C-alpha cells in the first residue's frame, strides 16, 4: 500500500518521468496553436483527447506558462454579470475536479468561495443584479450585508473608518483558487502524452495566408505548413493577428500582482473590491496573494511600479486593518488583452482557418480548460458550439457588445 502510494511520484528505474518532451519540428502539422499558455495547451489537449487530432504543434516563444498563465492570481469563479458569460464559466468551474482526476495531477482546487464587496448602495445594486442573474441561471451566489460579510471574513473592517465603508457583498461559494502553474504542467503533460508537440523557445514570425486562407506558420526554427492556426497568444494576440492583417478590438494593458510573506492562515476566502481595485486571497503556503488594477495605458512591458504597491497597501489595510503587520515580498506584472466589453473573443475570423481565443484580459485563467475544450470542438468539426456564439468577433461590427460591464470604458478619449 505504502509502496504503491510512493510509486506514484517516485522515479522508478528508467521510466521516463518527463512531464513533456522536446521534439524536432515537423514541416507540417494539422493545426498550429500559437501560445503555450493555458488556452493554447487546453485547446491542444482537447483536440487530441476528444477529436483524435494529435498532429498538432503548440508554439511558445518562451517557456510554457510564461505569460498570463503563470502570472495570474489563480482565482476561479463563475460570478459573471451577463447571461451569455455565465454558462461558460460555470461549466469551467465544474470541470476542475474532472480535470484533476483525468490528468492525474493535483491542481489544488481550493474551494473557498469568493466575496465581492460593495461600498455603496449603487454598488450593492449592481452586485444584487449579478446575484439575481446567477440564481436564475442556477449558479450559487448570495448577497450578504456588512455584518454577514464580517461573519464570513472576521478581519474585515465594517466600521466607518475606511475611505469606502463596506456596505455588503456578493458571496459566491463555488469559487476559489487553483494552482495555476500546475494546470499548465498537467495540460502540457496531457497533450504531450497524446503525441502533441510543444515547441518552447520558438517564436512565430509570420503567418502565411493564400487566397484568404491560412497555409502555414513561419517561426524562427523553420516554416510549418498547416491549414489551421489558433491565436492563443494572450497579451501578444494583437501582434499575432496583425500577421494576417486583422486588427483586434483589444488594448494590451499591464496588470500587477503581489504576494506577501507567508503568514499563518487567517483569510479563508477570496475577497475582492471593485471600488478599491483590489482582491486578495491566501495561498496554501500562507502568502497573501493580491492583485491590483491595470495601468490605464497600453504597454508590452511587464514592468512594475511603486504606485501600485503603495495603492495596494492602502486598499488592503482599509479593508482588513490587521494586514498592516504583513509585508509585501514580491510584485510582478503581466499583460492583459482587454476588450471594450470585458468579454473574450473566441471566434473564427475573416481569414479561413485562423481562429481566435483571446481578449481574455485578466479573467482568462478560470475559463481556460473549458474554452480549450469547446475551441477544439470548433476547430475539429468546423461548427461553432452554441456556448461560444456570444463571443464572436462580429459583435463589434454589429454594435452588439456583451454586457459584462456596465461602466463606460475610460481608456480612450472616445469612450
Amino acid at each position, binding site marked *: 500500500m505504502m509502496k504503491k502510494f510512493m510509486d506514484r511520484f517516485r522515479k522508478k528505474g528508467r521510466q521516463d518521468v518527463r512531464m513533456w518532451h522536446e521534439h524536432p519540428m515537423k514541416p507540417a502539422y494539422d493545426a498550429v496553436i500559437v501560445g503555450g499558455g493555458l488556452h493554447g495547451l487546453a485547446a491542444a489537449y482537447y483536440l487530441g483527447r476528444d477529436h483524435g487530432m494529435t498532429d498538432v504543434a503548440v508554439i511558445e516563444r518562451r517557456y510554457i506558462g510564461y505569460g498570463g498563465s503563470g502570472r495570474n492570481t489563480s482565482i476561479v469563479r463563475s460570478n459573471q454579470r451577463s447571461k451569455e458569460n455565465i454558462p461558460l464559466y460555470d461549466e469551467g468551474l465544474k470541470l476542475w475536479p474532472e480535470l484533476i482526476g483525468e490528468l492525474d495531477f493535483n491542481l489544488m482546487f481550493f474551494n473557498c468561495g469568493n466575496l465581492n464587496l460593495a461600498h455603496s448602495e449603487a454598488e450593492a445594486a449592481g452586485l444584487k443584479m449579478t446575484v439575481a442573474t446567477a440564481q436564475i441561471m442556477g449558479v450559487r451566489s448570495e448577497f450578504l450585508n456588512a455584518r454577514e460579510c464580517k461573519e464570513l471574513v472576521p478581519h474585515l473592517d465594517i466600521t466607518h473608518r475606511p475611505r469606502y465603508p463596506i456596505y455588503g457583498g456578493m458571496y459566491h461559494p463555488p469559487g476559489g483558487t487553483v494552482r495555476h502553474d500546475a494546470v499548465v504542467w498537467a495540460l502540457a503533460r496531457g497533450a504531450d502524452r497524446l503525441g502533441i508537440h510543444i515547441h518552447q523557445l520558438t517564436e512565430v514570425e509570420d503567418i502565411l495566408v493564400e487566397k484568404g486562407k491560412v497555409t502555414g506558420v513561419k517561426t524562427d526554427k523553420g516554416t510549418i505548413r498547416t491549414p489551421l492556426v489558433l491565436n492563443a497568444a494572450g497579451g*501578444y494576440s*494583437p*501582434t499575432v493577428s*496583425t500577421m494576417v492583417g486583422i*486588427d*483586434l*478590438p*483589444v*488594448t*494590451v494593458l499591464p496588470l500587477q500582482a503581489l504576494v506577501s510573506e507567508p503568514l499563518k492562515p487567517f483569510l479563508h476566502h477570496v475577497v475582492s473590491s471593485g471600488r478599491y481595485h483590489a482582491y486578495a486571497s491566501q495561498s496554501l503556503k500562507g502568502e497573501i496573494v493580491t492583485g491590483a488594477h491595470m495601468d*490605464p*495605458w*497600453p*504597454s*508590452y*512591458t511587464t*514592468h*512594475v*511600479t*511603486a*504606485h501600485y504597491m503603495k495603492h495596494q497597501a492602502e486598499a488592503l489595510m482599509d479593508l482588513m486593518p490587521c494586514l498592516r503587520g504583513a509585508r509585501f515580498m514580491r510584485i510582478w506584472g503581466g499583460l492583459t488583452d482587454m476588450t*471594450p466589453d470585458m468579454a473574450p473573443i473566441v471566434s473564427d475570423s475573416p481569414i479561413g482557418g485562423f481562429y481566435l481565443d483571446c481578449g481574455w484580459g485578466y479573467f482568462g485563467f478560470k475559463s481556460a480548460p473549458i474554452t480549450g475544450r469547446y475551441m477544439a470542438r470548433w476547430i475539429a468539426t468546423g461548427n461553432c458550439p452554441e456556448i461560444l456564439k456570444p463571443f464572436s468577433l462580429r459583435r*463589434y*461590427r*454589429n*454594435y452588439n457588445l456583451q454586457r459584462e460591464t456596465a461602466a463606460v470604458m475610460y*481608456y*480612450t*478619449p*472616445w469612450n
Partner: protein
Amino acid sequence: MSFLLTCPNCGPRNIYEFRFGGEVKTRPDENTVSAEDWADYVYLSKNVCGVQKEWWYHAKGCGTWFAVERDTRDNLPVVKEENEG
C-alpha cells in the same frame, strides 16, 4: 514602471499624473462612413509592439493634451510631437 512623461507645459512628471488618450487615429468622415468602418474605427486598435503615436492628457496637472511617440516595449517616449498647450 513609474516612468516619466514630459508635459510640454510642466516638464518631466510622474506618469500617474497623466491620462492615456488613445492611439492617434483619423476620424472617418461622418457622412460617408459605413457602419463596419465606423465600428472598426471605434473599437480596433493597432496595438503596436514598438513605437506608436498617442495622445496624453496632463490630468493631475495643467490640463494639456499632447501627442507623443512612445515605445510600448520599454515605455520610453521617443520624440515630443507638439509644444504648445
